[in-house]
């Protein structure tokens, strides 16, 4: 089957895709073609870009699974039953005792925003909030979470409003490939609470005194548990500054204008290939 990604015409769905869409009607309208998405982003700038992300977020958040969709293994060993809150909704799961929270979210609840990076507590891509505090879902056995409240990246936005940290990440270009981003954002949200409680860090000058100022050095230290292989750190630090201060700092990037794009396609007066 040949695929023409540049075609403006509606690509026909495969049988699998149609079945998926049927099972998850909330997804309809989210899967815009990449081309439409790019045009929207370029034309509307950040507003539409954010709106598009938000549409995906809220669709994911609103998704309800059919009763048999929470797929416990057919013959699970050592089944444990856990009742907990996930993004404000009560969930009761029956899981193999080995299931870590990250796998419960991704494989059993279709909440794939939390990412599996290293799966051994070294990269931070799986960071979620439990009772408002940031933790690593890859090292948390779900069985231990009875009665606890889990918030994932899917649960941060409310209705049509991005969480301020999400908006700040978009505004300050705090990502490139985006894989570490859900973890970075959940981590930054957790960090805000830690600052509010006056918690210290390794770079806090005097631990016996209250922590007062969230400097760049403090942000860097406090976000060090989240690795970004694209190296979007300057944007991440700017986003945390912005979200924490509540002061709208200037966006340091913008989409290229048609003139700039045309210029960038020329080098020393010659058209590049």
């Amino acid at each position: 089957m040949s695929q023409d990604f540049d075609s403006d015409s509606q690509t026909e769905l495969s049988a699998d895709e149609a079945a998926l869409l049927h099972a998850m009607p909330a997804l309809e309208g989210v899967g815009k073609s990449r081309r439409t998405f790019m045009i929207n982003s370029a034309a509307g700038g950040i507003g539409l870009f954010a709106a598009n992300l938000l549409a995906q977020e809220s669709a994911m958040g609103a998704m309800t699974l059919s009763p048999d969709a929470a797929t416990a293994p057919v013959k699970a060993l050592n089944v444990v039953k856990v009742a907990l809150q996930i993004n404000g909704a009560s969930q009761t799961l029956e899981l193999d005792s080995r299931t870590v929270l990250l796998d419960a979210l991704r494989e059993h609840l279709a909440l794939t925003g939390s990412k599996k990076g290293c799966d051994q507590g070294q990269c931070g891509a799986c960071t979620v909030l439990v009772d408002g505090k940031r933790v690593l879902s890859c090292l948390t056995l779900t069985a231990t979470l009875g009665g606890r409240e889990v918030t994932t990246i899917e649960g941060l936005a409310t209705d049509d409003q991005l969480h301020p940290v999400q908006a700040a990440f978009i505004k300050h270009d705090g990502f490139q490939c985006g894989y570490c981003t859900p973890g970075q954002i959940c981590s930054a949200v957790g960090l805000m609470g830690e600052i509010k409680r006056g918690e210290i860090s390794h770079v806090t000058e005097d631990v016996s005194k209250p922590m007062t100022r969230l400097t760049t050095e403090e942000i860097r230290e406090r976000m060090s548990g989240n690795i970004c292989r694209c190296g979007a750190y300057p944007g991440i630090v700017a986003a945390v500054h912005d979200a924490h201060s509540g002061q709208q700092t200037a966006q340091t990037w913008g989409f290229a204008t048609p003139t700039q794009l045309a210029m960038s396609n020329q080098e020393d007066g010659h058209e590049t290939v």
Partner: protein
Amino acid sequence: MRPFEYVRVADLSSVTAAMATTPQAKFLAGGTNLVDLMKEDVERPTRIVDITQLPLKQIQRTRSGLSVGALATNTETANHPLIRENYPLLSQAIVAGASGQLRNMATNGGNLLQRTRCNYFYDVAMPCNKREPGSGCAAREGLNRIHAILGWTESCVATYPGDMANALYALNANVRVRAADGSERLIPVTDFHRLPGDTPQRDNMLEHGDLILAIELPVSAGEFARHSHYLKVRDRSSYAFAMVSVAAALDLNGETIRQARIVLGSVAHKPWRSAEAEAILTGRAASEETFQKAAQAALRDARPLAHNAYKVELAQRSIVRALMRAARLA
């Protein structure tokens, strides 16, 4: 991960029974080390006893000082006002370790029990006397840049990697332990971890079924509150294990050192308290020259391996710098 039976205990009286019949049972608290090791197939418990609901989270004053619950998290402990004020060395050491996420999960009891980060211990394809007694030590003649320079034996050259314990050693903390029969005992933290000898599979003095209830900090350790410093040297400036770390604490009377505590981390199978360095410091005036003498004394018996001779020099310089900062001379 291998299958295991999951059991949650709600009170201390249920702990004994939960552990009794299963020699391969393990307590689970924060899980930051145990779950990782289970995924790596290094730890293979057949039963996990979840102790997170036990009432061991409190940090409170006692007649002898401060009792820090075994299940209080590292974050809660480092940020507790009484610890920040009276034992800032402990706060500093805790926040020098891991990441914000991990410190929110990790408990004090679990932190004491964390296992070595020796690469060969983690690699189940390699021989390791700690993981599989009698199989040999791959690190002895392998890549041993991060390994021990003090107290090691031919059977094991691994180090204890933690930060929190280094401060506890300097503060003469005690570990309150509940035995399987329900009796309680206090173990001085300086006797809690073991040197490898020829049984490196045993990291510490606990027996099967022993449960850490609390870490107790003596009132007297508060005398170091004004002059202590935790220095950690690592390959990157955050979120990495130490190459060398130093917990330095001074009790000063003017310029004269009334008493001193020096503990080195990541140089031996347990935090390495240097009685030699402390003896040199005691009674002398705080000065860089005195600190250098103490540093030399602390490393006099060092026996570096093929790739870690740098640790001897690094440890000496780190001791001097930590003491200079503790004395507020730098």
